[in-house]
């Protein structure tokens, strides 16, 4: 597809700009199905965003005084971050547990995680009523240190830096910056350790955000264990995302992946399915314990109770069994199906805590406006655009240039 750009930074600066400018140009066909769908949605979202900053959030969104957080927070931020959890799980496996088998997918996972955070933080800005004060909790004139959101905000920021450091050797390889590559590679381990710690805290922190909404969230979803539930479920949410993203990348970026890595792919997916099954078992057991302890059997006969049962049995227990069986039978297709079911289940869970079960008894239910949906989709599409741009240029899926292997 492209001739693997090799550029040494020791050249004069004019050629660097020429190189970067050349890389900015789109590559490949423009009229792909994805482009045809995503471009109009992104353009429409841009218009909606202008209206939002001009007339206020209420002009485009259905959030109200009773339900102040809608789709942009509940879906883009709370749900999206769970799916970005794959980055910390895989860096843990590869760098901490030294499971070299998963080395070939580490870069694409970290890239995916980094972009997810960058764009969800972006979605957060859209939802802030007074975004010009967004730096207040950072620059230190007003530290609300007793706030869970303060913690989450800081961890988002620091984790994005950590992920950027983890990913930076790839950028250095793209630019052919050998000395920078050596320095940045040396920082990976520290960034990984820091990043995993931050991830554990803010994945659970996203759940802890809802702890004070004790009477507002349906009792089947509220418990003091929300933070732990969010942490554990972010593990299999992230891995399912890695499985799904991997199976799509295998097709879309087929020509970039080396034969060796293609062969290894099935083994990786199988290994991941085992981990998914294990963590989902822990999660299901935890949910069961909390449910039994709270003695809420009578709630199961209500509509919300059946919705809860559907989530737990259909979208946790079922994919858990599927992961386990298909791991035993080495059925890669079924593992991918299980990953998709799991992801739907995680979306259900996050929305149940943040939107559907939040004020489930309110007279006026929150239903997102079409404009909110368009913006929520546009955020994801833009992220995929950038993702594709990077993959087509940097050695994310393809092998590193030979000089880079010296200092790894």
């Amino acid at each position, binding site marked *: 597809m492209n001739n693997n750009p090799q550029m040494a930074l020791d050249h004069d600066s004019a050629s660097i700009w020429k190189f970067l400018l050349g890389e900015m140009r789109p590559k490949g066909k423009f009229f792909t199905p994805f482009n045809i769908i995503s471009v109009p949605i992104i353009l429409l979202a841009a218009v909606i965003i202008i209206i939002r*900053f*001009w*007339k*206020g*959030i*209420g*002009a485009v*969104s259905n*959030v*109200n*005084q*009773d339900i*102040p*957080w809608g789709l942009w927070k509940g879906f883009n931020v709370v749900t999206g971050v769970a799916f970005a959890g794959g980055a910390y799980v895989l860096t*843990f496996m590869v*760098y*901490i*547990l*030294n499971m070299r*088998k998963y080395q070939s997918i580490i870069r694409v996972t970290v890239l995916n995680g980094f972009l997810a955070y960058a764009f969800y933080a972006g979605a*957060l800005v859209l*939802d*802030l*009523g*007074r*975004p010009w*004060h*967004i730096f*207040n*909790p950072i620059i230190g*004139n*007003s530290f*609300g240190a*007793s*706030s*869970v*959101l*303060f*913690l989450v*905000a800081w961890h988002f920021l620091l984790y994005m830096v950590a992920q950027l450091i983890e990913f930076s050797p790839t950028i250095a390889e793209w630019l052919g910056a050998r000395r920078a590559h050596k320095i940045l590679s040396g920082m990976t*381990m520290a960034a*990984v*350790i*820091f990043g*995993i*710690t931050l991830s*554990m*805290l803010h994945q659970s922190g996203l759940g*802890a*955000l*809802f*702890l*004070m*909404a*004790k*009477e*507002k969230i349906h009792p089947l979803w509220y418990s*003091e264990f929300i*933070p732990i539930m969010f942490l554990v479920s972010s593990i299999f949410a992230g891995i399912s995302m890695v499985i799904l993203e991997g199976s799509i990348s295998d097709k879309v970026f087929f020509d970039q992946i080396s034969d060796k890595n293609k062969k290894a792919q099935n*083994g990786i997916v199988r290994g991941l399915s085992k981990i998914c099954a294990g963590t989902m078992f822990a999660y299901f057991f935890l949910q069961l314990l909390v449910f039994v302890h709270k003695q809420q059997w009578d709630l199961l006969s209500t509509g919300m109770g059946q919705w809860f049962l559907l989530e737990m049995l259909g979208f946790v227990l079922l994919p858990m069994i599927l992961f386990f069986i298909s791991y035993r039978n080495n059925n890669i297709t079924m593992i991918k199906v299980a990953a998709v079911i799991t992801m739907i289940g995680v979306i259900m869970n996050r929305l149940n805590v943040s939107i559907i079960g939040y004020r489930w008894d309110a007279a006026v239910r929150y239903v997102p406006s079409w404009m909110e949906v368009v913006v929520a989709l546009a955020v994801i599409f833009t992220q995929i655009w950038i993702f594709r741009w990077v993959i087509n240029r940097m050695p994310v899926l393809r092998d590193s240039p030979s000089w880079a292997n010296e200092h790894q």
Partner: protein
Amino acid sequence: MGIQRRSFLKLLGVTGMTLAIGEVGAATPKTDTDVEFNGILYDGARCKGCRGCEFDCAEAHGLPEPLPSKDVPAIRKTNETCNTVINTYNTDKGKVFIKRQCMHCNEPACAAACLTKAMFKNKTGPVTWNANKCMGCRYCMISCPFDSPKFEYHSANPKIQKCDMCFERLKTEESPACVFNCPNEALLYGKRRDMIKEARRRIYEKPDLYVDHIFGEHEAGGTGWLYLSPVPFDQLGLNTSMQQSSYPELTKGFLYTVPSVFVLVPTLLLGIHQATKNNHLNKPKEDE
């Protein structure tokens, strides 16, 4: 070596002790005792439902004038254009009124939730909002058990609206607008401690008139607004089953684990990394 291990430890101990004692020594005298939370006592048996307080409140805060009584429903919520409402409930003792507004909790969930300290519990009791700090995340609205903060959704420069116990007005006047203007003496402003004493006295003197409960004395860990009522409070739309401890208490456990996670997890990760470092070297290829 200029400094020996023993003398270093001694120095460390002395420094530590000095710091610790210094802290205690500085914290004990005067302060805190002379500043106490103020509160407002609302007496549901005295309120005649004239809604004068709604008008006075709107005037004091520059908000639009409320609609006349024939045009408003009996039960309303506060919103971004009105900081207080008088609701009418038909109970077994006839029509009973209740004033609703921000409760000014002793330990407010909104202030604990705020990541910029825009929501702030003042030393004298009022919970106020600071436009120069707020970034409009609305986490205060998620957290408040009384749904007090209201957001101006239809503004490009939105503000949070709620009762501020007339924080600005109290710098010059002796009581909030609603208390000052109430024609029936249904509202009383003073030290929260004194308000509780007064409420107890009223219940003691007229046990048939009041239910034996002061709403807000313990609810949500205690609130600045205190309520007396002739009928049980759940008949007036108040949540009587809400927790008696403060809401920030609910996140305390999580927040307290953060420092220990920050110390223990990296150490653990580094340890595991060292332990598994050479695994791939001595493992024969049975992995496939």
